[in-house]
């Protein structure tokens, strides 16, 4: 990670320190450029401002609609059947569903992702397997989530995994929080692996050697020194993964949805009955409540989308905080 370098102290002689990062003031302006170059710069500005405008428009628009339509009661009442939008309840089940899916998905993705990253950086033999693994992770990142979802229907409809979802008369339903979380963890996995890897790779070799020199095994070094030292990057990866999990819709629609309420499985004990049953998340709710979905309650879709956006913004902010703290610690300066 090329951290932006702080500008050098005192005035550098003009023209001596040229671009990339520092001392922008000492750099030529665009006044001497040809017209075509200046038009190009104008295009740069135009697109930059356009990006900002789009972002501001999205946030402001959803903020306005959210404030207009979001009622605190929606957050605590589940959806129910009704003829008008005021009768059909809120989306508490969807909100809870999002939290459950996010927690379970990242709980699966994090250990596996860290494990893969550790293997890649610290072991990585045979080299052929390491190369295959890298391509695998890259491939998983490139697979459309709808394909993952379809694959999930095959796995979780198999009789052997019937205990993870609802079964009736030997037919496995295949839709459950377990099914959705497992597939969603695959969505987050590449991000976690990439970040954890980056963290491990940024630790200089002499740190490992120092640990070996005092008699620590490789495993102990990894657990006690390397993983703690790359915690900021791992946290960043987890946040990014969470963002993807929270925002994914296709997998939820295929492997969890079909309902706007929790549908616990009868005859199972407390947490399991809910986790084995179908459910919903905010993304699924927004999808179904939009004019193209089955519910068609645009006002509620706005409200849910606003809550979803707040979650995403919070995750973004968390990434920022982690990043900044990591930079402040700046452990390995060499």
């Amino acid at each position, binding site marked *: 990670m090329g951290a932006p370098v702080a500008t050098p102290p005192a005035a550098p002689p003009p023209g001596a320190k040229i671009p*990339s990062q520092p001392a922008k003031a000492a750099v030529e302006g665009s006044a001497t450029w040809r017209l075509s170059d200046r038009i190009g710069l104008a295009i740069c500005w135009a*697109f930059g401002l356009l990006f900002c405008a789009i972002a501001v428009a999205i946030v402001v628009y959803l903020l306005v609609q959210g404030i207009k339509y979001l009622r605190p009661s929606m957050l605590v009442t589940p959806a129910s059947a009704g003829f008008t939008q005021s009768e059909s309840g809120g989306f508490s089940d969807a909100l809870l569903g999002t939290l459950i899916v996010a927690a379970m998905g990242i709980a699966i993705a994090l250990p596996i992702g860290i494990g893969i990253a550790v293997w890649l950086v610290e072991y990585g033999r045979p080299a052929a397997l390491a190369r295959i*693994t890298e391509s695998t992770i890259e491939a998983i990142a490139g697979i459309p989530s709808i394909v993952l979802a*379809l694959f999930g229907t095959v796995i979780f409809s198999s009789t052997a995994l019937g205990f993870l979802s609802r079964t009736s008369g030997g037919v496995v339903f295949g839709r459950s929080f377990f099914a959705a979380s497992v597939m969603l963890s695959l969505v987050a996995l590449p991000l976690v692996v990439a970040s954890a890897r980056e963290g491990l790779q940024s630790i200089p070799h002499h740190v490992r050697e120092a640990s070996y020199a005092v008699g620590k095994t490789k495993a102990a070094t990894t657990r006690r020194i390397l993983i703690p030292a790359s915690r900021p990057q791992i946290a960043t990866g987890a946040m990014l993964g969470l963002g993807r999990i929270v925002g994914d*819709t296709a997998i939820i629609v295929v492997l969890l949805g079909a309902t706007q309420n929790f549908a616990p499985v009868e005859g199972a004990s407390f947490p399991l009955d809910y986790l084995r049953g179908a459910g919903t998340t905010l993304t699924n709710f927004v999808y179904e409540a939009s004019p193209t979905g089955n519910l068609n309650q645009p006002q509620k879709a706005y409200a849910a989308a606003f809550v979803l956006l707040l979650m*995403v913004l919070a995750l973004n902010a968390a990434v920022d905080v982690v990043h900044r703290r990591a930079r402040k610690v700046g452990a390995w300066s060499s």
Partner: protein
Amino acid sequence: MEESYPEEYGPRWPDRRVERTLGALVCAVVALLLAMIVTVFVRGWPSFAHNGLAWFGPGGNVDDQLNAIFLSGQAGAEYVYTFHAWPLIWSTLLITGGAVAIALFSALFVAVFIIEFAPEWMSNVLQPVVRFLASVPSVIYGLLGVLVLVPFIGNHLVSESQKASVAGVISLSGYSLLAAVTVLTVMIAPLMVSIFSDGLRAVRPGWLEGSLALGVNRWRTTWKIAVRTARPAIVAGTVLAVARAIGEAVMLAMISGSVGFAPNPADGAVFVFEPSRPLAPTIVKNIDQLSSPPANATLFAIAAVLLFSAALLSLTGWAARRAMRKYGATA
């Protein structure tokens, strides 16, 4: 620090066991991917086998075909597999191509702007903005598309005479190529920007300084040296964005119009207002039909095509980056 574990037992987790455990984990993930590829192709095979190459060709109404396929599985009669996916493929190509072309152009300018030309405050604003746009869930884009962009296009951009001109064929209501391409562009451009700017940042300053020392201005230097050096990153970002665009299902299911119709460029300007439905949203829309075996095979065949294009893309990207390795910048 940890004193409670007696030293003489030896390490609790000997290295070899750790290596094997992690190796097994890695193998499991690789095996999972292979299993997925094999499953998807095997499940989709009946559809390919019955249609041959005509699967990819035009002919008939796709939605009717999908319906017939679904019903044949329920009735218990002989399965029908006839499926000609061209309208869906054509729609995928148009929407992905349009969005990627626009996004590539704008993302390149924005990345250059962030790295090189923006004043400090501007790039400090732009970076979080790009990150934010990249992380907005696709349903939110879809919702805004459905409730804002589509009505706008339907009410203000499409004229009555244009609606009348294609009245017998398709109805124009705002769900259109234009809406899909616009929203998809906003979705994928930020991805490109973040990868492009990482690539531009990694360009060796010495190369740029060399160019500047020869009296080339900053604009020219950036485009001739920095952007060229960062080509591997540009390829990588584009590949990722194309993959995302091809696989985008939910947002496009919401705003592309969800009609198995192949927009016809011969219609002139009306073309961009015509609805369609790409491959991935077709799966989402017909997901309830999985219980019918022929429909199941057809949906998996679509998934196989998506998977194959994703693999092809990664391969292209890998080959292109390999060929460009001599330029020195990493992606």
